[in-house]
C-alpha cells in the first residue's frame, strides 16, 4: 500500500496532476521555451533539477522553518538552487545556457516550484517530496515536450533543429508565435481534460473542491486557512 502510494506520488505529475495541463502553472516558460524541442527539454530538465533539490531541502527543513517566514525561506532555497544550476550550465553546457537565456534565472519565480514547495514538500516527508519533485519535474518536461513537438514540427517544419522534408515548405509559422503557443496550449489542456473525464473523473467543479490541489489544501477541506493555490499564484505570479 505504502509502495503504491509512493508510486502514485511519482506518476501523478504526468497526467492526473500535470503542473502545466492540469494545475495550469508555469505558463510563461511553457509558451516561451516551446518554440523548439531542444530548448523545451533543457528548460524542463533544469526546472526538474531545481524542483527535486528544493522539494527535498524544504521537506527536510519543514519542521524548522517558522510559518511566518516560510515563503521567503522557500524563495531563498529555490533561488540558491536556480543560481547553482545556472552556474553549472554556464560552465558545462554553455550552448544550452545561451539558448535558455533569461528563462533560466526566471525558474526562481516559476510557480510550479514554489507551488510544490507550499502544497507538497512542506507537508510531506523527504522521500515523498523527492518523488513528487521527480514526477512533477518530468510532468513539466513532458508537457513542454508535447507543446514543442507540435509547435516546431508544424510551425517550423523541423524537429530539434533538423528540417523535415515537405513539412518545411508547408509549415504554419503562426504556431511558433506566442499566439500560436497559447492556441496549442489551450488545445492540449482540452485534450488532457477530455481524457481525464473519459476515465471517469468528474469534470472540475467551480470553487475549492474542483481545484486539482484540493487534497493537499486545508482551505478546500473547510478549515479557516489560506488557499495554497492562491498563495502560490499570488507569490510567484503565473510563471
Amino acid at each position: 500500500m505504502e509502495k503504491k502510494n509512493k508510486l502514485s506520488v511519482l506518476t501523478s505529475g504526468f497526467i492526473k496532476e500535470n503542473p502545466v495541463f492540469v494545475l495550469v502553472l508555469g505558463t510563461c516558460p511553457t509558451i516561451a521555451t516551446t518554440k523548439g524541442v531542444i530548448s523545451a527539454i533543457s528548460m524542463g530538465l533544469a526546472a526538474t533539477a531545481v524542483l527535486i533539490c528544493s522539494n527535498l531541502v524544504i521537506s527536510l527543513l519543514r519542521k524548522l522553518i517558522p510559518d511566518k517566514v516560510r515563503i521567503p525561506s522557500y524563495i531563498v532555497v529555490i533561488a540558491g538552487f536556480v543560481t547553482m544550476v545556472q552556474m553549472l550550465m554556464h560552465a558545462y553546457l554553455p550552448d544550452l545556457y545561451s539558448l535558455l537565456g533569461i528563462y533560466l534565472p526566471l525558474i526562481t519565480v516559476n510557480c510550479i516550484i514554489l507551488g510544490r514547495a507550499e502544497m507538497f514538500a512542506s507537508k510531506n516527508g523527504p522521500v515523498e517530496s523527492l518523488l513528487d519533485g521527480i514526477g512533477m519535474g518530468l510532468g513539466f518536461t513532458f508537457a513542454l515536450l508535447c507543446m514543442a513537438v507540435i509547435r516546431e514540427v508544424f510551425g517550423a517544419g523541423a524537429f530539434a533543429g533538423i528540417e523535415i522534408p515537405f513539412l518545411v515548405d508547408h509549415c504554419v509559422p503562426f504556431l511558433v508565435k506566442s499566439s500560436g503557443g497559447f492556441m496549442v496550449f489551450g488545445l492540449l489542456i482540452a485534450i488532457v481534460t477530455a481524457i481525464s473525464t473519459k476515465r471517469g473523473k468528474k469534470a472540475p467543479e467551480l470553487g475549492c473542491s474542483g481545484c486539482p490541489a484540493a487534497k493537499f489544501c486545508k482551505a478546500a477541506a473547510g478549515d479557516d486557512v489560506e488557499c495554497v493555490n492562491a498563495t502560490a499564484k499570488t507569490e510567484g505570479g503565473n510563471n
Partner: protein
Amino acid sequence: MKKSLSSVICLTVISLVITALLAVTNAFTAPIIEEAERAAAFGALTKVLPSGQFGADCEITEISDDLKKIGVESAYVSSNGGCVVTINTAGYSTGLKLMFGVDGEGKIAGSECLASSETLGFEKTYGENILGADLNSIDGINTVAGATKTTTAYRNAAKSAMQAAIILGGGTVDTRSEEEILNDNLNEILGTTAAVFTKWFKTADLGPVENAYVSSLGFVFESEGAFASTDRNGSIVNNASSLTEADIKAAYEAIASSDTIADVDFSGVAVSDKVTAVQKYANGNYVITVKGSGFGKNGPAEYGISNEYIIIKVAVTPDGKILDCVTVSQAETEGIGSACADPAYYSQYAGKDASTLDSVDAIAGATFTSKGYKAAVNAAIESAKVLKEAGK
C-alpha cells in the same frame, strides 16, 4: 518576540547556508566559465587573423590616445606578428563595430562585423572586398553603390586598423583629420600654432582670392592653391602666393568691413515666396535665406518624407552673381539627398549666376533634392535683382 527572533534566525541561517553553497559552486565553475569565454574570444581573433597566435597577455589593456583617435576600442597583438583590432565607427547609423585582422605585412587578413544597425546588410559581406588590401591600395577599392555610407565607413575603418597595426608595432602615423591638417597648415602660414580657423562666408567679391580663412589671430587667403596671411590689423605676415599686396589688402578690407550688416524689410517687394530673410551688407551685397522644396517636401508620401524644407543661405550681389552658398539645415534622405549639406555640393554655386546655374552637378540619385535646391538658389538670385530695383 520569541517567534519573530526565531524567524529572523531561521531565515538568516538558510541564507548563509545557501550563500556558502553558491560560493562553493562558483569556486569550481568560475575558472571553467572564464576559460570558455577566453577561448571564445580567441576563437574570434583567429577567425580574422588565421595565422595569429594569441597568448594570455595578447590584449592591449591600455588603448593609447592615438589609437582612440582612430576609433580603436580594443587591440590584441599576435606573438608571431600582426594584430587584431576592433573599431567602433558610424556608417548609415552609429554603432558599426568591426573587427579586423592585420597580418605581419600590414595587410588586411580578415574582418568581421560584430554589431551594426545598418539598413541594407552590406557590412556583413563587404569585408571580402578588402581582403589582402594594404594602406596603399585600400583607397582604390570600390564602395557599394546604394550603400556608400556603410561601405565607406567599413573601408575607412580598415584603413584605421592598418594604421593601428603600425602604432602597435612602435611606428607613427598621421592620425589627423582633413580639417585638422588644414588648420595646422593655416597656422603655419600665419606663423601661429593655436589659431582656430573657420572658412569665411564670402559676402564680398575678393577678386583673385578664392577662399579666405578667419581666426582670432589673423587671416589666411587662398589663391590657386597657394596662401598668404595677415594679422588682425591687416599687416602681411606671409605671402607664398601670386597675390599682390593690393589684392591682399583689398581682401582684408572686405572681410574687416563685413561686420556692417542690416536686416532688410522686404514686405511689399515682389521677391520669391521661397525667401525667408534678407540681410544687406555695407558693400551692397545681400545674404538671402531661402527655403528649398526637396524630397522632404515633394517626395512620395509612402517613403516617409520629413516634410521639412532645405534652408539655404546665399550671398549674392545686387546683379545676381552668387558669392557664396551654404546649407543651413536639411532633412533629406540620409545618405542620398543629405549630400546637399556637403561642402563639395553647395560650394559649386559660388561664382555662378542665373545663366550658369545649370552647370552645377546634381546629386546622384537625388533628383527631387537637386531640383529643389537649385530652384531655391535661383529664387535668391532673382530676388536680389528685384530688391535692387526696389531700392532695398
